[in-house]
């Protein structure tokens, strides 16, 4: 390339850069203008990911709020829930976060690190809010290091959904509320028929958090804990941890009564096709089972432990971001109204989502919900079996990855439960020590 040419090509980008700086300056000017006018009043911005019946019910509630509160405008923006944090992070960096965003509970410890997130501790302790009316599992997930960073938006839990027809065909009695994992294992074996490719149960094996939280329920039922009380050490390499992994190994490896789903999506179709006897899953799957006659029972227990029939819950939060005090208080007012008993009741009835408040769950509501979506009443009652939340620490995503590998390696028969536990505990301790 000749020198002349080189100079030419250099001049180009420089010109462009100059023009661009002008454009950027102009854009920045516009941006601050918009920010200035939006800083005071103007509608509060909500990012939510509702679809279908939930979207309809939510839109109705927003309209009702605006009618009841003249002058309060609420504008909603649909964002796929999986991507909300990613987009919020970008918006925060750009100086224009939404006023309220729907964020997964599993993100809470990380969300708490964002400086623009509003501390709601004072707000939810106001007398009218009745904070303790929210389920324990929800409050635990909304609180990071004693600071409330969100108001519960949605709650679910795990229970056992079973195919009544397959149970009857196998001559089995349907599971009762006091059943055990031993019984689950035996039933799964009897429900398995290799000739017609029928499995007793299923488990998701991508090794993601979906793999992990199913196991965490077993660990808690066996009386175990993930971490020590001070959160500094792994505590799952214990008799309870061993019992939980032994149960999974017995079904996946020994009895081959467990369908292993590497995709995290096939199991639901198979259950709806009558190929799987029992599923440990949440209320969100129920509407996908129109073709089978199913029942719902609480999680089995490990007799002789104090774990009982407890289950795990994955609540999500409404998180408020600071765009100036006027907007913050408008956002807080809306969120408190949205999560007040009357609105919670309406939303649950319209959508079949579990009520996020205990007072709403009592009374006729769950029967009404159960008519629309059979089995959901058991999930509502099962919220009482949520006694604890996953550790609320920023290292949890890393720990979850280690646990996912541990569970999958046992399910695939690649490691023995005790060896898998020891290796995972050692890695988790390293992660915790690194801070």
């Amino acid at each position, binding site marked *: 390339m000749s020198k002349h040419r080189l100079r030419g090509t250099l001049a180009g980008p420089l010109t462009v850069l100059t*023009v661009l700086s002008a454009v950027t300056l102009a854009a920045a000017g516009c941006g601050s203008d918009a920010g200035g006018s939006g800083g005071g009043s103007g509608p509060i911005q909500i990012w939510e990911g509702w679809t279908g019946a939930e979207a309809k019910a939510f839109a109705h509630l927003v309209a009702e709020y605006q009618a009841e509160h003249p002058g309060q405008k609420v504008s909603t923006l649909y964002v796929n829930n999986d991507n909300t944090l990613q987009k919020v992070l970008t918006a925060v960096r750009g100086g224009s976060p939404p006023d309220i965003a729907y964020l997964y509970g599993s993100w809470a410890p990380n969300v708490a690190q964002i400086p623009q997130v509003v501390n709601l501790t004072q707000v939810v302790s106001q007398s009218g809010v009745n904070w303790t009316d929210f389920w324990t599992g929800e409050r635990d997930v909304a609180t990071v290091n004693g600071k409330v960073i969100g108001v519960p938006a949605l709650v679910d839990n795990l229970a056992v959904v079973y195919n009544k027809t397959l149970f009857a065909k196998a001559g089995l009695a349907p599971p009762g509320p006091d059943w055990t994992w031993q019984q689950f294992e035996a039933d799964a074996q009897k429900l398995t028929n290799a000739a017609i490719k029928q499995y007793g149960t299923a488990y998701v094996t991508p090794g993601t958090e979906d793999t992990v939280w199913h196991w965490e329920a077993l660990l808690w039922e066996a009386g175990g804990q993930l971490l020590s009380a001070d959160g500094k050490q792994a505590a799952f390499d214990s008799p309870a941890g061993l019992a939980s992994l032994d149960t999974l190994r017995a079904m996946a490896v020994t009895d081959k009564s467990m369908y*292993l789903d590497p995709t995290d999506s096939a199991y639901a179709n198979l259950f709806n096709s009558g190929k799987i006897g029992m599923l440990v899953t949440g209320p969100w799957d129920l509407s996908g089972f129109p073709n089978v006659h199913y029942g719902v029972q609480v999680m089995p227990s490990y007799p002789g432990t104090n774990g009982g029939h407890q289950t795990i819950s994955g609540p999500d939060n409404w998180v408020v971001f600071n765009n100036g005090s006027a907007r913050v208080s408008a956002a807080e007012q809306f969120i408190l109204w949205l999560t007040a008993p009357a609105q919670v009741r309406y939303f649950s009835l319209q959508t079949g989502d579990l009520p996020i408040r205990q007072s709403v769950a009592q009374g006729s509501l769950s029967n009404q919900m159960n008519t629309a979506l059979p089995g959901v009443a058991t999930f509502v009652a099962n919220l009482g079996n949520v006694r604890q939340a996953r550790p609320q620490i920023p290292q949890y995503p890393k720990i979850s990855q280690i646990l996912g590998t541990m569970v999958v390696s046992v399910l*695939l028969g690649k490691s023995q439960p005790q060896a898998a536990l020891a290796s995972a505990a050692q890695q988790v301790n390293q992660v915790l020590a690194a801070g």
Partner: protein
Amino acid sequence: MPVRDARARQRRAPGRPGTLRTMVASEHFSGWAFVTPGVAIILLFGAVPIVWSAVMSFQRSNLLSPSTPFVGLANYRQLAHDPIVAQAIQHTLIYTALFVPGTMAIGLFLAVAMNRKIRFISFYRTAAYATMAISTISEAIVFIWLFDPSYGVVNYFFSLIGLPQQQFLNSPSQALYVIVVMTIWGWTGFAVVIYLAALQGIPQALLEAAAIDGAGPWRTFRRITLPLLSPASLFLSVWLTINALQLFDEVYLSTQGGPLNATTVLVYYLYDQAFQQFNFGFASAIAYFLFLVIIVVTVIQFRVGRRFTHYRS
């Protein structure tokens, strides 16, 4: 005509050089004025993120908290020590080594088979390209069911011909190969179209001359067709390799890197580090490492390819 041109030039020329008017009137300026909006957008959404992620690769950044301390080369050092990075590199290389030649060979075979006048040829050609038009998500769902260990058609055929049943996506030693098959299927249509176009550019006269000289079909193919297809082959090998090194969608949709990291490739690990673990600094370092690998591989391909590529037909 030339006279008028000269006069016109004269008339336009006067103004003093360097005035605003001459600058505005110059073709150079109006050219830039037209492309500036486009260039600005490309720079804003292309160049800025590229530079920003380069900066991030030297920081400890989780995008959550505002503190982003510079850590020098720590993220790059971590690349060397992270065992999953080593696995991801291995998987990416195995995948690329199988996917690129596989797609090209099958694409070439189909293109040659369809480069003739037979009945329903446009139907066959459309069918071959249809795989490109199918969204990756439907493709992944179809393959998940085809290769399902219990209910899949593939295992059913295996049982018919007496082969043992396989675990496929549930097996750490097989899952990556299922993804190879899945993506070859998805990309073959692309190779077919490129090769078909190249085949139709081969002069009939050369093929006839070879036939007259007594060359059989295989020899004609090896000595005439294949060399004349070499520019298309070079293009495909470069293009498919870049795509292969950036494999993500199929892994995300089918195995999410599992089982036991068996299908964790570099870009999937990058995604996992950035958006699951919030290690944006480390993820940026992976991105720049991959960028370097792609540049090196592409340069090698062009260097080596040049020796085997014939541009004149």
